[in-house]
C-alpha cells in the first residue's frame, strides 16, 4: 500500500512532465535496500552483543559523520584542518553525550548494549552533524567576509578574542537554530519521530514523552557542544601566537584541486 503511494508520485511526475519519476523510483529503491541492509546488520550486531562489534559500528558512524562535517563548509582549512576539527568535535560531543545518557538516565545492562547505544548514537550524530557543520561553515565564511573589520580592531589594539567575539557568537547562534526550532515545535507543530514510533508500538504516551524529552535534551547538549567546539577550534586554527588573522591557512580553489 505504501509502495503504491510512491508509484502514484512517479505517475504524477510522468503526467505533469516533471521528469522526476526516475529519481523518485531510484531513491525509493535505494532507501529500501539500504534500510534492509541496515536492519540485517543491526540484527547481527544485537545478537552478537559484543563490545568490540558495537565499538566498531560506533567508530564507523562517527567517522562518516565527521567526514560530512568536514566537507560541508564552502571554505576549507589547509592540511585537512576541517577533518581534524570535525573528528575531534563529532567524536567528543557524541561519545560524551551518549555515554552520559547510557550510564545515568537509560542505564541498560550492560551499559554498552548495542540495542540502546547504536540507535542513540545515530540520533545524537544527526544533531551533532547539523550543528557542527553550520557552526564551521558560518565561522569560516564569516571570517573571510568580516576580515577588514576584524583586522581594523586588531590594528587598534584589540585582542583576537575581542575582534572575533561577535563572529564567534553569531556562528554558534546560527548553528543552534535547528535544534532550538525542533524543541520549540515538539508537541505543538510536530510529534518527533521516535515518539511517533513508540506510540505506534503501543507505548503509553506519557512514557513515550519522557523518552522524547530526554532525547531532545541530549540532542541540545550534544549540538551545543559540537557547535561551540567547531567554532572555537576553527578560530584557533585561523589565528596564530601573535594574535594575527591567518587567512593564508584557508585553502584556495587551486590548492583544493591540487594545482599550484
Amino acid at each position, binding site marked *: 500500500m505504501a509502495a503504491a503511494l510512491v508509484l502514484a508520485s512517479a505517475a504524477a511526475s510522468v503526467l505533469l512532465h516533471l521528469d522526476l519519476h526516475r529519481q523518485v523510483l531510484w531513491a525509493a529503491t535505494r532507501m529500501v535496500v539500504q534500510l534492509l541492509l541496515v536492519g540485517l546488520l543491526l540484527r547481527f550486531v544485537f545478537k552478537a552483543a559484543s563490545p568490540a562489534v558495537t565499538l566498531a559500528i560506533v567508530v564507523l558512524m562517527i567517522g562518516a559523520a565527521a567526514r560530512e562535517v568536514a566537507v560541508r563548509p564552502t571554505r576549507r582549512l589547509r592540511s585537512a584542518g576541517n577533518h581534524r576539527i570535525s573528528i575531534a568535535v563529532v567524536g567528543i560531543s557524541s561519545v560524551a553525550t551518549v555515554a552520559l545518557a547510557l550510564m545515568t538516565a537509560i542505564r541498560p545492562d550492560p551499559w554498552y548494549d548495542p540495542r540502546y547505544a547504536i540507535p542513540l548514537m545515530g540520533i545524537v550524530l544527526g544533531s551533532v552533524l547539523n550543528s557542527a557543520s553550520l557552526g564551521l561553515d558560518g565561522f569560516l565564511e564569516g571570517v573571510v567576509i*568580516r576580515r*577588514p*573589520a*576584524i*583586522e*581594523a*580592531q*586588531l*590594528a*587598534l*589594539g*584589540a*585582542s583576537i578574542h575581542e575582534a572575533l567575539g*561577535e563572529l564567534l557568537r553569531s556562528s554558534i547562534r546560527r548553528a543552534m537554530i535547528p535544534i532550538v526550532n525542533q524543541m520549540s515545535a515538539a508537541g505543538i507543530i510536530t510529534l518527533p519521530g521516535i515518539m511517533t514510533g513508540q506510540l505506534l508500538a503501543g507505548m503509553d504516551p506519557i512514557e513515550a514523552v519522557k523518552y522524547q524529552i530526554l532525547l531532545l535534551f541530549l540532542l541540545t547538549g550534544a549540538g551545543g557542544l559540537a557547535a561551540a567546539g567547531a567554532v572555537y577550534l576553527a578560530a584557533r586554527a585561523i589565528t*596564530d601566537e*601573535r*594574535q*594575527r*588573522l*591567518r587567512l593564508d591557512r584557508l585553502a584556495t580553489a587551486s590548492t583544493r584541486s591540487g594545482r599550484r
Partner: protein
Amino acid sequence: MLSISGLRSAHGGPFDLELGRGECATVVGPSGVGKSLFLRLVADLDPGSGSVQLDHRLRESWPPVAWRRQVVYQAAEPAWWHPTVQPHFPADSMECVRASLAPLHLPTAVLDAEVTRLSTGERQRLALLRSLSRAPVVLLLDEPTASLDEASTLAVEALLQDRVRGGLSIVWVTHSTEQAARVSHRRYGMTREGLRSL
C-alpha cells in the same frame, strides 16, 4: 625610536626605516609595489622576518596587543564593526574626539550617525580620529587623505602636524609627492627592490 631593519615577507621586502620621536616619515611609490604590505608588517598583522624595534625593544618582546596599542595602523579603506560611529571610540576619549571634529570640518552629530550613511570622506576623517583616540606612540597611515578634497586634506595635515609636534611619530604612505614634501621630516621611496631613503 622606531627602527626597522631587513623586514620582509614572502610577498615583499626587505624594508629598512628609521624614525625618531615627533617625526613624520613619508613613503611614496607606485601602486602595487608593497606600501600597504610594509605597514601591515610593521603593525604585526602579517607574519614576516627581520627586526622591528620600538625604543630599542624588539617587537617580539612585546605582547601583540601591547605592540598594536603603541603602533596603530590605519588601512587605506578603514573598516567599521558597529552600525553607528560612537561605539568605535573609547569612552574616555570622547571629550578629545569632540574637540577634534570642527578642525576636520565634521559636525558634532556625526558621532551619533550610522556608518553606512556617511560619505567616504567623512568615514576617512573619523577613522583618523579613531586611530588617534588610542593615543599611540607611532601611527601608521595608509593614504589617509586619498578620499578628501583639498580643504579637508590640509585640515588633516594640520591636525597631524600638531600631534607630531606633541611627540607622535608617523609613517605616512602617500601617492602625492607634494604632500610628502609638506609633512615629512624623512622621505622614503618604495620600489620592487624595497625601501630607500630619498
